[in-house]
């Protein structure tokens, strides 16, 4: 089985983002960039499948500018066998990314495609589902457990009231949720080995993928800032304040 994992390079989730003064977007200059945390979970799951012999090859894929190679090297250091960069300097929406990935997948013919459930920058939670639609493959989003069966996978999904389990025939698309696994840290020897693993580059044009954006970002502004209130000295004071001051009880 071949597993293809799509990863995204994003701003480190612990970084406080700065906005451009003209309101046009987020200022990424000098910001620390990492692999999207959900995508790390996706790479980890794929590598585990290969380690137990369910998968024979793990291919990491990303869409982005040249620096994205660093993110792919992280995937390789975690255990992916090879990587493919679809190189573009323009901002691509999930619809565009899914078209690019579809073209790649038509070529690579994996049995399983993993993506993180959402990117922590745009929080769209869309690419996996869109890709599944374009491929006309079954999908399982928010996976918290994956069990490989004969020609199929059993996936436990995190849903609003608890967990739902579905069975998907392969090939299929799965998006990963937080509790699927805990990703490994790449060891130094593996980081060194990753430098020699193959990374090939291609452009969206070469894949005949239409990546024209459909949304225009009119503005990006700060979220309303919440200002703290006061400390209370006891639970009695708290209850009193909530009743009389805040009218919350």
């Amino acid at each position, binding site marked *: 089985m071949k597993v293809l994992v799509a990863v995204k390079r994003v701003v480190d*989730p612990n970084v406080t983002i700065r906005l451009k003064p003209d309101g046009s977007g987020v200022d990424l200059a000098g910001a620390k960039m990492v692999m999207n945390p959900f995508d790390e979970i996706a790479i980890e799951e794929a590598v585990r499948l290969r380690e137990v012999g369910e998968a024979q090859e793990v291919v990491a894929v990303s869409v982005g500018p040249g620096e994205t190679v660093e993110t792919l090297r992280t995937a390789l250091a975690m255990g992916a066998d090879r990587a493919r960069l679809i190189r573009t300097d323009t901002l691509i929406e999930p619809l565009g990314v899914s078209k690019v990935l579809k073209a790649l997948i038509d070529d690579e013919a994996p049995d399983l495609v993993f993506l993180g459930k959402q990117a922590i920058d745009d929080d769209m939670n869309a690419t996996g*589902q869109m890709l599944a639609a374009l491929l006309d493959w079954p999908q399982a989003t928010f996976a918290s457990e994956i069990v490989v069966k004969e020609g199929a996978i059993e996936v436990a999904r995190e*849903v609003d009231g608890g967990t739902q389990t579905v*069975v998907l025939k392969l090939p299929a698309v799965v998006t990963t949720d937080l509790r699927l696994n805990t990703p490994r840290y790449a060891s130094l020897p593996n980081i060194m080995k990753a430098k020699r693993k193959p990374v090939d580059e291609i452009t969206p044009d070469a894949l005949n993928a239409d990546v024209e954006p459909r949304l225009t970002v009119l503005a990006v502004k700060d979220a309303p800032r919440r200002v703290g*209130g006061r400390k209370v000295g006891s639970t009695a004071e708290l209850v009193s304040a909530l009743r009389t001051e805040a009218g919350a009880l």
Partner: protein
Amino acid sequence: MTTLCLAEHHNGVLSVATARALTAASALDGPVHLLVVGEKPIEVAANAARLVGVEKVLCSDAAALAHLMPEPTAALIANLADSYDAIVAPSTATWKSVLPRVAALLDVMYISDVTAVVAADTFERPIYAGNAIQTVRSNDRIRVLTVRTAVFAVAPEGSDAPVEMIEATIACDDRATFLGEAITRCERPDLATARIVISGGRGMQSKENFRTLIEPVADKLGAAIGASRAAVDAGYAPNDQQVGQTGKVVAPDLYIAVGISGAIQHLAGMKDSKVIVAINKDVDAPIFRIADYGLVADLVTALPELQSQLE
């Protein structure tokens, strides 16, 4: 322009999320049709027909749609899309799974977690864990969006719209089969829509403490129970109680954070609450910076005290 709004419901009961999504759909200017599919759809459709703002309820009781599997559900909605300029759904696990699939089938972009409707084609939505708000305009023929229900008012009842059964035959897609589910059904209000939420964090230290310390207070307040990611990861609370950027986003009248330090990702899930209370023994916990009322105390003593104060 006409909008198709998708109903969220469970076990024959319409979720209040539907009435909130309807408010958002109505803001797009134009009639709204409500689509009811899933389990016990006919029962739900009859209730949905009473919501003010619904011109017509469309209903399908096709067996293939009983569990709202994305493959047949998205196919059905895509087939209906020709008659609509917008498709709106509450931002729930079901619709977050289905709607992007619909958008791609229609070759249009999808817009998730809309927090404000600026115009029929322009929306606000949070990015970077809610630390920034982006305003986007859709250039597509049809707008496909999920809305963050907490920010929209509940559409009232009082109407009597016609219910139309959909004739379309939807075949079961045997490539994806529903196997089972483990859903916590309980007496407490639904976390996503509760008026009061009390959440426990890593400071709770055990599942047992959630039961003996948080639950009695929640009972007294008629509150829903939430948890931080750390608490869920540690096994103190189930995953569907997680409040945060990648869990549930809530905006209750009162949010009580107990033993929660206040990481950005947790704040993303509750910072729009009307009143925030934090109880934490660490005076430097970041949560105190945004709490309206902060109590620096050990939750082990504070919670039972709070419980008796609420008698």
